[in-house]
């Protein structure tokens, strides 16, 4: 920052030109010395100011390095220690739904507005390697601890998790509910556990190309949600999933994930807690259930081996997305002295497309232009369609389930539109039509036409 000597000479000369003409030589010399001293003093002040700015910048850098971080944004509210080894995030999501059953002449469904999910999330990391997550749910008018677990991330290839969480089976179940393309998940998800308590080891190899998870759980019915176990029998669940192009990043031809998951275990139900599974319609009405009248003779219970298997895949290319799964859930059921192995199955193929050009993903998508009407930005628009089917084997009828009250098969197709205002903030509308086999005293249950809406906010 020092002035070059030529510059100094020019500056002194310029100042001298401003001095009175014709002054004696002695006076000129004195003036020159005085001006030179002033230039020196100014130069020193300039250097001091520059150095002080350098030191302030150093201090700011040091402070940023050592000071705990606080952030608020799309990822919620985050506190982080300076070294990043401690972290606390407070976030959550909220979903307000409208459910409408069209042409519902038998009044099977009730048109309603519900708080489907209201889930604050507290999660974090302690001592760098240990994560925790607590997520209650206040939706559906019933407060519940939905997830609560600890996880030790020991190595990329090994993490140990304990607590209550999603067992590693259903693909769409493992997708965050804030990222699913339809308001209600598809039929295959009805055949896998929702949340269960257990231990799990998981990890990945090859930079995420291959991931595994295997765990021991209490065991819950299909779509079940458990806090405590009613029997000594346990269930083992596992999943192997490959994302072959993950290491090619942006240069991958497409985002493909393919895998297989399953579970096996035993279940011993009782008349009070039969442990059997049910099937739901797209409108979340129960369409199949096993017999239950509170007596041993009239109640079907789960009694023996229960297993599930699900081949699963997704594919995303550009704005287009495709998700497919086929799930088989086998149950050993007993009613009084009658025992049978009953097969439940379900599949779905769901496609989605961003009309506004966003890159589709298994995870959340951020609109290219966040909703800002004053700037003429309206977010992202996505359309979706799916076909799906679920069924129960013939062997369930009529001994274990009543064909006059429970359907044997549901086929459905649906379309939907999602308006993404920002990441995690969206308006959804779906229409789904389902037809049934059996389920009525005479013939088949009438078709269901279901219209659903959702307002979702993630914070």
């Amino acid at each position, binding site marked *: *920052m*020092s002035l070059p000597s030529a510059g100094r000479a020019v500056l002194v000369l310029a100042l001298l030109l401003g001095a009175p003409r014709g002054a004696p030589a002695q006076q000129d010399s004195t003036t020159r010395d005085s001006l030179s001293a002033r230039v020196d003093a100014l130069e020193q002040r300039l*250097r*001091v100011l520059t*150095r002080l700015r350098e*030191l302030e910048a*150093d201090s700011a850098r040091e402070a940023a390095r050592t000071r705990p971080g606080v952030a608020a944004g799309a990822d919620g509210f985050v506190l982080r220690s300076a070294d990043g080894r401690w972290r606390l995030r407070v976030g959550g999501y909220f979903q307000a739904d409208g459910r409408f059953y069209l042409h519902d002449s038998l009044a099977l469904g009730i048109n309603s507005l519900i708080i489907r999910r209201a889930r604050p999330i507290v999660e974090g990391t302690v001592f760098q390697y240990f994560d925790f997550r607590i997520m209650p749910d206040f939706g559906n008018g019933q407060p519940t601890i939905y997830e609560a677990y600890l996880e030790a991330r020991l190595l990329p290839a090994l993490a140990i998790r304990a607590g209550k969480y999603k067992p590693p089976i259903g693909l769409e179940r493992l997708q965050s509910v804030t990222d699913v393309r339809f308001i209600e998940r598809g039929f295959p998800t009805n055949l896998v556990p929702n949340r269960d308590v257990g231990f799990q080891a998981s990890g990945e190899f090859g930079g995420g190309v291959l991931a595994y998870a295997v765990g021991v759980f209490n065991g819950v019915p299909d779509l079940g949600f458990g806090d405590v176990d009613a029997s000594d029998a346990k269930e083992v669940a596992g999943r192997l999933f490959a994302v072959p192009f993950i290491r090619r990043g942006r240069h991958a031809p497409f985002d493909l994930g393919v895998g297989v998951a399953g579970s096996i275990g035993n279940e011993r139900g009782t008349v009070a807690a039969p442990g059997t599974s049910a099937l739901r319609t797209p409108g979340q009405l129960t369409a199949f259930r096993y017999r239950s009248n509170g007596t041993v003779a009239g109640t079907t219970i789960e009694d023996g081996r229960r297993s599930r298997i699900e081949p699963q895949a997704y594919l995303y290319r550009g704005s287009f997305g495709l998700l497919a799964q086929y799930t088989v859930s086998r149950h050993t059921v007993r009613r009084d002295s009658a025992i049978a192995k009953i097969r439940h199955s379900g599949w779905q193929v769901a496609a989605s497309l961003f009309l506004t050009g966003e890159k589709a993903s298994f995870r959340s998508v951020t609109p290219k232009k966040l909703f800002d009407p004053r700037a003429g930005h309206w977010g992202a628009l996505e359309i979706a369609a799916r076909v799906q089917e679920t069924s129960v084997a013939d062997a369930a009828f009529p001994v274990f389930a009543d064909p006059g009250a429970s359907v044997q098969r549901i086929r459905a197709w649906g379309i939907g539109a999602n308006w993404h205002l920002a990441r995690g903030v969206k308006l959804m509308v779906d229409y789904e039509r389902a037809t049934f086999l059996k389920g009525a005293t005479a013939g088949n249950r009438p078709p269901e036409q279901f219209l659903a809406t959702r307002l979702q906010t993630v914070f």
Partner: protein
Amino acid sequence: MKDALARSPAPLLLTLAGGLLAASAVGAQKPVTLLNVSYDPTRELYQDVNQAFAAQWKAKTGQTVTVRMSHGGSGKQARSVIDGLEADVVTLALAYDIDEIAARGGLLPANWQSRLPQNSTPYTSTIVLLVRKGNPKRIRDWGDLIRPGVSVISANPKTSGGARWNYLAAWAWALRQPGGDEAKARAFVTSLYKNVPVLDAGARGSTTTFVERGIGDVLIAWENEALLAIRELGPDKFEIVAPSLSILAEPPVAVVDRVAKKRGTAAMAQAYLEFLYTPEGQELAAKNYYRPRNTAVAAKYASQFPKLTLITIDQVFGGWAKAQRTHFADGGVFDQIYASR
């Protein structure tokens, strides 16, 4: 073979034991890293020391050792160690900073200073004045630093050990002037800091300010730092002014027991510090302008150090604990002086 093993497992056990011994012998040769957390101006000294110690250790034990360094203001470095920086050894500017590591961090015993010769101070230094060539402001002694128009460069005593030595040397000089007392010393030091335009965090930073940024007329500096500046930049640019009185600065060294024990480096860390007392270590200290303790080496290098009257911190200030409490603790004399500028 299978039958032989079935008859007696001894050969197999011997093979296994031999393998384990071999593996443990290989383990002993595993390269080891030490972390030396030091103060600002010791970079050049420990580059030389680390290289020489590594060679000596390798020759003696066959083991490769790499000594990593961390440099900064001495007080700041001590806080980093207390806060978890895993130093095997600390080589700081003053004993108080290591006392803090012992007291607040509990990382080494309170009697750490008695574990090595000469109060764990293998070399000493002092405080001198570095001026620009020709001494344009005619600075001859401490008293010239408070003249109007004299710009003085010194680091911040709150973060820099060297700056605390600077401050105390100036205070001691004022006390020793005819009619000098605590009030006059305080007034003198207050005037001195009024002439300090920039407070760097560490001694090396203030050298940068003076030497590289061209700020100020005089740098209050470690003697070794001033001599190094002249060696690196040429005697045609700077010269040293030896004040009539200065302070004997004793930068101590210590093994951080808890860290060294945890990392299994205690013996090596001890050997590293003991190396500083060897004739070779003392030579390296002298070559880097630290005053060696070894009398023979000191005599050999006597000509490079100006003759000074040196007081000690115990003589004038009653030791580091008292000096720290009085002058440099939050709200102490320095804070009061600097706030009144």
